[in-house]
């Protein structure tokens, strides 16, 4: 009987934990990706949720909490499921310059110029990460315009932009997002790069 009670209490505790986690995740509005701490933060209306990749746990986080040592620079604040998924990915492997650009893009709105400058290698790697597997080149062969398989993300390194032939008048590449079926991007991040 005692063993049965323990089992019931254990199951109830598990269910309660799941319910708490679910309730916390509903209504998630913002994510913060920070450079030094491998963690992502989702801000709800009242509290934040911190994923600690070292502890492999999700913790609630409020305004009185302090971030871990080294967590000084917030590189991006974003909203929505896609950003949360990205942030989890960053939490798992650490953040690179390319990740920062992707975070900045997913957190952005409209036409923006990145605060980061990538090397050519970093740009290509980040571009591939951005559009993911199954991407395809659109336009004419060799266009340098690549779309994700779902059509919602575009990595563009067209010759005109690579040459810096137009504003912002420096060699740049593009990380862009689109709403389904849209032609005007939701975000168009102009990212300077160097050879």
């Amino acid at each position, binding site marked *: 009987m005692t063993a049965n009670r323990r089992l019931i209490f254990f199951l109830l505790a598990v269910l309660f934990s799941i319910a708490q986690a679910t309730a916390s995740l509903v209504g998630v509005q913002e994510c913060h990706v920070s450079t030094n701490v491998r963690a992502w933060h989702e801000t709800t209306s009242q509290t934040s949720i911190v994923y600690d990749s070292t502890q492999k746990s999700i913790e609630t986080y409020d305004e009185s909490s302090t971030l871990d040592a080294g967590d000084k620079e917030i590189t991006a604040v974003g909203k929505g499921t896609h950003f949360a998924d990205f942030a989890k990915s960053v939490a798992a492997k650490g953040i690179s310059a390319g990740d920062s650009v992707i975070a900045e893009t997913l957190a952005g709105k409209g036409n923006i110029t990145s605060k980061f400058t990538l090397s050519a290698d970093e740009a290509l790697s980040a571009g591939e990460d951005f559009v993911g597997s199954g991407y395809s080149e659109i336009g004419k062969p060799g266009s340098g315009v690549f779309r994700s398989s779902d059509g919602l993300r575009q990595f563009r390194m067209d010759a005109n932009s690579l040459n810096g032939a137009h504003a912002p008048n420096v060699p740049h590449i593009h990380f862009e997002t689109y709403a389904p079926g849209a032609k*005007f991007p939701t975000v168009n991040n*102009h990212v300077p790069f160097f050879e």
Partner: protein
Amino acid sequence: MRKDMSMQSKIGSRGRITAGENAGFFVRVEDDSANTGGYLILCWRDGTDDGFDNWVEKLTDLDQFFMESGWNVEWLE
């Protein structure tokens, strides 16, 4: 078809965005068929490096692009 023709006539022309998020910027559509096979929409603020570019794959995409932009463009040329 008439709309496609109207956008086609604007390629290479300069316009000014008079309303919308980027009001005050100039805009020009460039035929980039030699490079990408698509069209570049270049926007800039005169006398500065402040600007950006967008891209569409097809001529028929231009109408939708400008409609979604929320811009009101006064074509100057």
